[in-house]
Every structure is written in C-alpha cells, then in structure tokens.
C-alpha cells in the first residue's frame, strides 16, 4: 500500500495520470458488452448474472445477463455479456456507477 501511495505521489508530482506508474486498477468498459479490469486483486464470485471482483480498495459488482469471464489472468480480467449494472462497493458505503 505504501509503495502504491509513493507511486501515486510521484506521478501526481510529474503531472501524469495515476495509473501510469503504479498498480492502480483501471477499468475499460466497451459498450455494454465488455469490461476489462487491469490490476484486480481477485475474482470473488462468479455466476452468469453476477460477477464480484475485489480491487485493493473496493469491490466491483457487475450484473447482467449471460455473463462470461473471457479471460482471467494475474493482471487482467475480461468479462463479456450483456451488462446491465456496474456497482462499486467501498468500505464506507455504496456508490453506484
């Protein structure tokens, strides 16, 4: 955590986006068909309607129809299907995306 903070600090100092230097999670959503998440922590749970992915500081709950995890690699998760809802769950409370 400390390392990540340091990296974030340096990138902020250099005027760069935060995800360039550290292992900060990054999410790319393509339409409502595909979600790419870089640097996740783990895949918590998986069904065809509900995918729960743990990030360092939050959890993402993806709900939809016929969901399928296309690729599950150490630094990347790709979820495909018809996505209806993407939800962040932080420790403080819920935040809807």
């Amino acid at each position, binding site marked *: 955590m400390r390392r990540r903070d340091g990296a974030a600090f340096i990138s902020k100092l250099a005027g760069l986006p935060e995800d360039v230097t550290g292992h900060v999670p990054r999410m*790319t959503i393509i339409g409502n068909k595909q979600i790419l998440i*870089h640097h996740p922590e783990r895949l918590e*749970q*998986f069904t065809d309607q509900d995918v729960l992915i743990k990030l360092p500081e939050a959890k993402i709950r993806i709900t939809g129809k016929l969901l*399928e*995890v*296309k*690729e*599950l690699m150490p630094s*990347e998760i790709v979820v495909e299907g018809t996505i209806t809802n993407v939800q962040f769950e932080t420790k403080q409370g819920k935040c809807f995306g």
Partner: protein
Amino acid sequence: MFNLRRNRGNVLANLFLSGAVTVVVSGPEASLFPGRLHECGAVLVHIHYEKEDIIRFQMPVRHLGLLRKEARHFKGKVRLEKGTGLPFLLRRMIENYTFLLCSICFFFIIVLLSAMIIRIDVTGADVQTEKQIRAFLKKEGIREGAIRFERVNEQELSQNILLHVPNVTRFSLKKSGVVYKADVSLSKQQKETASDRRHLYASKAGVIHDLFVEYGETKARRGEFVEKGERLIKGSKKHPARGTVTAETWYKVTVTAGNDKLLTRSGKKRLNVYVSLGDKEYVLWKPSSLRKPFQSEEHRYELHFFSYTLPFSILTVTDYEVEKINTVETEEEMQRRAIQTARTAMMMRLPEKARIQGENVLQKRVDNGKVKMIIHFQVLENIAN
C-alpha cells in the same frame, strides 16, 4: 489499449501452442473456484457458468498443478473434459495416422501421375515425319507412359529435331498438363515434274567407278572422268532416267593437331540438392565441395499437381572434378590423331552411302609443336542427280 490487446493475443496464442484443458467444476462452491485459482496465479479463459453450481473453463496444461492443489481443498467435483491446442491436435493426428498417411500418399501419387506423359499430339506433320519425330522424342525420353520431372529444353530439342528430321522447318513442344503438344511445320516439297528429271547429270566431277541404270541410256563409261553438270544417263520425256552412278570424288581437308592440355573428368563428383521456392534456393543436401576445379551440371525438376505447377521445384547440381592432363604426343601420334579428326569431319560431311576409299597426306608442317596437315581423300559416292 492497443498494446494490451496485443498482449492478450499473445496469451491466447501461447494457450494454443502449449495446449489447454477444459475443466468442469461442480459443487456448491463452484462459483468461488475460479477466483481461488486466480489467486494462486493461474490463467483461466472462457469461464462459463453452465447452470446452478456448474462452471466450465479452460486453463493451460502447465497450470494443472495449481488446479490439483486447489482441488484438494474443494468439496465438489473437478473433472477434466478434453484437451485443445497444438499438442492435443498432434496427438489426435498421430492417432489417426492412416488418414494422414493416405493424404500424403494421395499427394505423391497425384504428383507422380501429373509428371507422367499420357499422350503426345503431333500436329502439322505427315505420317512419315510424325513417325520420325515420335522416334526422336522417344530417344530423348519423351514417350507415352514415361514419368518426367525435368523440364524439356525446348530450344535444344527443336534444334536437334531440325537437324535430324528432314523437311521440318519449325518445331515447338508445349506441355499442357499430361499431354505434350508438338507443332510441326514442314517445308513445301517441290513437285518433281517428269520433264525436270528427264536426264541424270553429274553433281560433282569424278571418275566413274560403277554404273547402275534402271531406266535410260548410258552416256558415260566406267573409268571415264566426268565434269560437274555432264549428262550421265539419258531418259525420255515419258520415262525419266533412273539409276545410280558411283564415282570416285576428291576432297581436301586441312587439320591442325597440337599438344593441347586436355580437361578430363576424374570420376569424383558431388551431388547438391536444393529446393527452390520462388526465387530463393534452400539447401537440402550439400556435401563438402571439391577442392580441385570442377564442371557443374544443373537439372531442374518441376512438380505438378494436375496441371498446376507447384511453387517449389527441386534443383540438382552435380559437380564433376576435372583434371588437366598434359599429353605429350610424338609427332607420329599427332599425325595419326590429325588424320583421325579429318576422317571424322569428312564422314560428317558426306551422304550416308558414301565410302572413304583412300587418303593421302598432301602437305605436312610441324610448327611450334603443332602439326598442320592437308589431307586428300578419295571418296566413292553417287553423283547422279
């Protein structure tokens, strides 16, 4: 983004090359299983939720150890369904080796049959010339039923045919599939009218040796000297003269023979085999090269699949080692060789039925280690024309 996509492509390609296994997990905690594997560092793809508590996914073969470790703590069932990717494909191919073998055999048989000459069509020639051309082609190895990979050197062949088959003015040979098409043009033969050939005249000067008159009246006698153009046998308009007049004629030949260095093949040879693909040539077999000077002979073998030429051909280059031989001949030997060369040159020039009766050396000069000779030949040949 682009970079990341390329990275994913690499992962999938690796998965194909190293082989992947489809795993089916069933049990109450099945939905948690991929996450646990992921935590251990395994790569999973195509994770599919089949129905209640059944999950199907693919993983690389090399991560199966991680799967086993996880499966020990897992309460449900883990089943390996089937293998995909190159190693499994290869194994399946080896299991069905008969099919593979048959396809390879089929390919080779077709290539072999495509190289076979099924038919030779000769167009534009009369029956006799066609027969001669076919005989000549057969001697060159182009006959029906022969398997021939080497490309026909059309220019050389047509030159040889023009030399050896009379009346042919143009010859072309084209390969279309398994059929060779020979196109021949014949020279128009002048019709010999009776009046043209009424009498027989001497085509050369000479002393008459023998006379054979089929029809006509003899105008010359045996032992008589006749000039060129002299009438030999007289015929009538209705019955033109026919016969042969053998006469002794004379020829002069100049030859030179010297102690030239001869190049002979020593018998050592090296066969290099190349596969040429497009303009490039790849070595298939290359023995150590010869140390001494050598001559090379090239042969290109083309492969056809039906009438299509395959993009690769086989090229063989045979190197023959040559040696210089210093022949030290005496003057007498050189003379004998000079006469022999002159004799062969004469034989080439003379018609078939002519015969060399005798030879006399008119002049002999030894100069700078070379022998220069003028030889006089007496030849018996038919001069009636």
